[in-house]
């Protein structure tokens, strides 16, 4: 009886561990190689990358309006802040008024030297993953960036990288920035197909 009980505990713990690992990790591009159709594979790669792009750590600063959101529930930023003329805040209430060069544990305020909002044209909140995908590869709506520059931004921009080291009790984006970069590179290589929704 005791042995049976112990096995149940092991099975339950193992199952919980596997579930948590799955939620935190990103699949590798190679794991999509069984999808024979290239366009379908490209779409699947973007859907996986979308787990990062649609994570609150990214969406909070890609708002549809002039005000960012915050938290896992993406509530309006408090205090009220607006993007201003340069996406770095209003006169006398800049992003850097509160957000310093690094996360600051005593106040719990996150930080990075380049803290700012994504330009209005790069709004992601309220959009489907398919809409975000089309927007990302459209130079008229992505800040006139090439696909190479998009990859560079997502794979190496240190402010994007903050999403994996957000400090405090903020949930990091899934996987790693390198894994996201690999998925985006593979999505580009396979033709940048977008999900239909």
């Amino acid at each position: 009886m005791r042995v049976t009980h112990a096995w149940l505990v092991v099975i339950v713990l193992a199952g919980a561990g596997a579930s948590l690992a799955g939620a935190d990790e990103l699949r590798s591009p190679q794991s999509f190689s069984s999808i024979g159709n290239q366009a379908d594979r490209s779409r699947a790669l973007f859907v996986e990358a979308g787990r990062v792009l649609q994570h609150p750590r990214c969406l909070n600063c890609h708002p549809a309006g002039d005000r960012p959101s915050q938290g896992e529930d993406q509530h309006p930023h408090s205090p009220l802040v607006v993007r201003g003329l340069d996406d770095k805040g209003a006169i006398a209430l800049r992003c850097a008024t509160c957000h310093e060069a690094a996360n600051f544990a005593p106040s719990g305020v996150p930080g990075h030297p380049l803290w700012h909002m994504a330009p209005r044209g790069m709004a992601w909140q309220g959009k489907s993953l398919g809409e975000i995908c089309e927007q990302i590869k459209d130079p008229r709506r992505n800040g006139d960036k090439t696909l190479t520059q998009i990859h560079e931004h997502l794979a190496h921009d240190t402010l994007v990288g903050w999403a994996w080291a957000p400090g405090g009790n903020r949930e990091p984006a899934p996987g790693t920035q390198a894994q996201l970069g690999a998925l985006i590179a593979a999505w580009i290589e396979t033709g940048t197909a977008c999900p239909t929704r």
Partner: protein
Amino acid sequence: MSITLNVNGTRREFDGDPDTPLLWAIREQLGLTGTKYSCGIAQCGACTVHVDGVPLRSCSAPVAAMTGRAITTIEGLASRVAKAVQKAWVDLDVVQCGYCQSGQIMSAVALLEKKPKASDEDIDHALAGNICRCATYQRIRAAIHLASERLASKEGA
């Protein structure tokens, strides 16, 4: 660890943990208590100082990051704009309990330094992070407009 600070144009030494919030350095070690502690999480604006001429919440910045930067507290405000703002504050009797007012003035001065003819919207956006539990917001706005008008006239010269 000893850190040299430039506070109100004077060289001051801070000795302690480099992660200490700037607020504690200026209040506890330097004795400049005009800057107030309230929320401690950059939500209320009572701890606002100027660093290199722009507002900063001193509760949310490590003192180690202040090396080589010019810190101005409410005690050190001395510009033409600052004097006009302080006079308008007194003339309109803006203050009620007063606890938040040094932070309000620091933000108001920073606004008018950058935009002398500030609109209501400019004021709302610039001071949205400065909370007043006495709700003196209407008098704050009026005082900023008064200071702005005086600065544009001979009275503020």
